[in-house]
């Protein structure tokens, strides 16, 4: 049962094949068995999960039906959860218990989902391998010597190892899609503003977006139905009507125009990944879609622009972690200055400090125009590239990552790590919805296919992904490597 999709589990629960308590217990058992290997969860809420599950069963007995009622879920540890530790993968918040729930968390609670716990992540979502977490790296269920991707590595690994039925993630430059690709699962980054950021600890405010991490496009649609929508507590949340994202899943792809960006099939892409994605595109051709080569001429500037904008915003967003009101404070500070310096030096890891320094530098007097302002210009150019492309095509498809999951500790050069997100970052800069779905294996490791749609065209995106999954079984492949040795 634990390997089933949300859609399938929802059916099983409503038929009474299984109760939410039984299902929740099954996942909890699995977490107990495998989390020491995978390190996907930083907090497991056994007691409250079983209570929530019992409440869900009782509600169902009272006649309540809802697609997510009683479905076990894991939240990335970036979402504030009232009364439960929210660490954001950092020593800085290792003891932080938020007094409130993030909007995303409340919405899943309202939908009757059962929270199993909080998942590991790169510190403050800064990383592409989950190796920057204060709580140690997450292991890839397909090969425990490899990284799961990041920053939502814990959620991705938890889904791939069937430690939960669905999970939340956040994506600032690829943090949902790249780990989804590395772990062979489905991940969606919605349009900027589609889901409230209230209660989601900020990395880069203008780029951060929450999204579903799950086993199928249909599950992503079910989760998005619960997550999306206006929230008056987030001024950047979009006042765009929420659709039923399952409604268009079965639309035909006959005549669909798929854009293939030349820049995403260029130097640096592993041949095995390219082959898998090309084969996947063949599936679409069989479904009646048309493949059109397109250009995203400024794509090569996206990583540079991103590594100015994101650190700049982060440098201010992380200023609140000063040891004054909550979180880590150094021992025996000599004075205010000493408290600031040591609390932050000791509380933040190297990658976070590196980005704070880069961002601080980019915003400092005399450099603002050369860096921040120029990066914002590039951002507009990138958006224009996409706008032009969507005049010609309905959807853009390429690889999610240039290669499959790499070995733990393999990438020590920060810039090499930053290039991990070369295909995904532009989508955040442009605020578009993007998705990664499993599209094959390369040397036994999952390959992710990256789909991008125009602003708020999540229904189209999910339709295109779902049709692929109806005609392939890549998303059904289960990781087994992590189970060996148990």
């Amino acid at each position: 049962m634990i390997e089933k999709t949300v859609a399938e589990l929802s059916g099983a629960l409503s038929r009474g094949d299984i109760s939410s308590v039984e299902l929740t217990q099954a996942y909890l058992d699995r977490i107990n068995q495998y989390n020491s290997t995978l390190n996907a969860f930083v907090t497991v809420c056994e007691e409250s999960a079983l209570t929530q599950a019992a409440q869900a069963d009782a509600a169902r007995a009272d006649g309540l039906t809802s697609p997510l009622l009683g479905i076990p879920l894991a939240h990335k540890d970036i979402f504030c959860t009232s009364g439960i530790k929210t660490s954001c993968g950092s020593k800085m918040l290792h003891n932080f218990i938020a007094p409130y729930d993030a909007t995303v968390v409340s919405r899943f609670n309202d939908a009757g989902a059962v929270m199993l716990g909080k998942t590991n992540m790169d510190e403050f979502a800064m990383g592409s391998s989950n190796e920057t977490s204060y709580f140690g790296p997450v292991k890839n269920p397909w090969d425990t010597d490899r990284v799961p991707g990041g920053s939502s590595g814990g959620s991705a690994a938890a889904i791939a190892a069937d430690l939960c039925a669905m999970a939340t993630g956040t994506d600032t430059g690829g943090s949902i899609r790249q780990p989804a690709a590395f772990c062979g699962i489905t991940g969606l980054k919605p349009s900027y503003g589609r889901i409230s950021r209230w209660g989601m600890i900020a990395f880069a405010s203008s780029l951060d977006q929450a999204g579903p991490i799950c086993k199928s496009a249909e599950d992503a649609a079910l989760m998005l139905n619960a997550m999306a929508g206006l929230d008056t507590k987030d001024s950047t949340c979009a006042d765009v009507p929420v659709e039923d994202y399952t409604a268009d899943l079965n639309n035909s792809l006959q005549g669909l125009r798929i854009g293939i960006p030349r820049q995403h099939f260029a130097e640096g892409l592993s041949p095995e990944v390219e082959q898998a994605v090309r084969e996947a595109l063949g599936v679409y051709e069989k479904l009646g879609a048309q493949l059109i080569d397109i250009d995203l001429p400024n794509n090569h500037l996206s990583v540079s622009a991103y590594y100015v904008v994101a650190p700049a915003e982060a440098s201010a967003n992380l200023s609140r972690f000063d040891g004054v009101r909550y979180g880590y404070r150094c021992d025996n500070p000599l004075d205010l200055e000493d408290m600031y310096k040591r609390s932050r030096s000791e509380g933040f890891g190297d990658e976070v400090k590196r980005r704070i320094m880069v961002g601080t530098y980019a915003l400092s007097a005399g450099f603002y125009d050369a860096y921040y302002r120029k990066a914002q210009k590039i951002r507009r150019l990138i958006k224009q590239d996409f706008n032009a492309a969507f005049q010609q095509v309905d959807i853009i498809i390429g690889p999610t990552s240039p290669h499959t999951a790499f070995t733990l500790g393999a990438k020590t050069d920060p810039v090499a790590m930053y290039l991990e997100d070369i295909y995904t970052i532009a989508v955040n800069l442009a605020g578009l919805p993007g998705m990664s779905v499993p599209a094959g294996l390369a040397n036994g490791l999952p390959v992710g296919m990256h789909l991008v749609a125009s602003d708020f065209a999540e229904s189209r995106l999910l339709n295109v992904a779902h049709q692929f999954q109806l005609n392939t079984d890549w998303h059904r492949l289960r990781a087994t490597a992590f189970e060996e040795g148990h």
Partner: protein
Amino acid sequence: MEWEAVIGLEVHVSLSTNTKLFSGTASIFGAEPNTEANIFDLAMPGTLPVLNKEALRMAVKFGLAIDAEIGKRSVFDRKNYFYPDLPKGYQVTQLDFPTVGKGSLTITLEDGSERQIGVTRAHIEENAGKSLHEDFHGMSGIDLNRSGEPLLEIVSEPEIRNAKEAVAYLKKLHAIVRYLDISDAIMAQGSMRCDVNVSIRPKGSTELGTRTELKNINSFRFVEKAINSEIQRQQDVLEDGGTVIQETRRYDAERDTSSPMRSKEFANDYRYFPEPDLLPVEIDDTYIEAIRATLPELPDAKSARFVSEYGLSDYDAGVLTATREMAEYFETVARSSGDAKMAANWVTGDLQAALNKNNWDLAESPIQAERLARLIQRIKDDTISGKIGKTVFEAMLEDGSDVDQIIESRGLKQVTDSGAIESLVDEVITNHPEQVQQFRDGKEAVLGFLVGQAMKLSQGKANPGQVNQLLREKMQ
């Protein structure tokens, strides 16, 4: 050498919204520490700002009142610095696109002349909290009640030339924001604060000297003293062959001196950038015109109307329109009594003196407008004389009862009975034969003395007109 000062003011007024600028917390002066601070005000991770529309409306209202350009698209920015009473580590303010652009206001100087002072801009920003350094055994306490309260920072052009002009400018700003009902603007409570930029240059020069910024000035009087003291200091420095250093100085009112603040505080690079948690604020003409329609009559317009409608002097009109409350009080007295000039004299004279003496606000005065109007009516209808009016006024300060009752019960009613007056007059004529003779010899001026004697005999209650007339008749 003769020197000339160049002065610019940065005035912060707290906008009197019900809640803070970006959080729904109430904004109340004097609450227990940290009771008016929610998770946003504490900068809990994951919290986000939502603009208080009322603060925006108030800023636009101010802009319209000083005839300023209104920013149709204003943008909030983050100003980054670390301080314990700044929980987010940045202050949200408006740098390049403020809500209020260039405007101006007119100040009236002591000699009655007027000057136009330019306002560069006025932007909306959030207040910081308060650091408390006493009572914590060598540690500091943080009170975040004030954190996030909406401020309007009003920046003047460097067009002010001396301390008196600066005070006149401040008082005009004070009057405008009070008229608009957008701020209490109480300097002693910090809801109006003023930083002063001062530089001096040889008179006639067009180049600007090096300026210093004075902080920590919390009354109109101290503004004047602080500026004069700083002008003198700069003059001494320059005349001794020194140079003025660009720095921020803290003014100490008790010792009437200023001293440099820690250099670190002004060496900050604030690394401003647009606040990504807020969208740019877009407003249109409909929005602006709707606010314009709510503008009250402002001090200058009201003063001009008082001159034309009530025939007041410019000076009286200026005094009576200094605050909205005073202007409303005066108009009520003028209308109810039917005599604007008397109303103006009473309000600017006896009433103002009583307020000053007792340290009362107008609202605290035991003589409210309708009562004063009644008193004036009683003088006009000859129930009492003008002189007795003063006695009644003094009684009204202590006795809250009806004006007529006070006159009646204290026997202050004017004597108009001709028999009674005739006997008074006879007595005066009998007692002062010498003066009566002088009058009869043509010395008109002595009549005043004789009238005075009669009034004295009547304890001021006789009708002076009747006394005057009867004395003339009897002495002819």
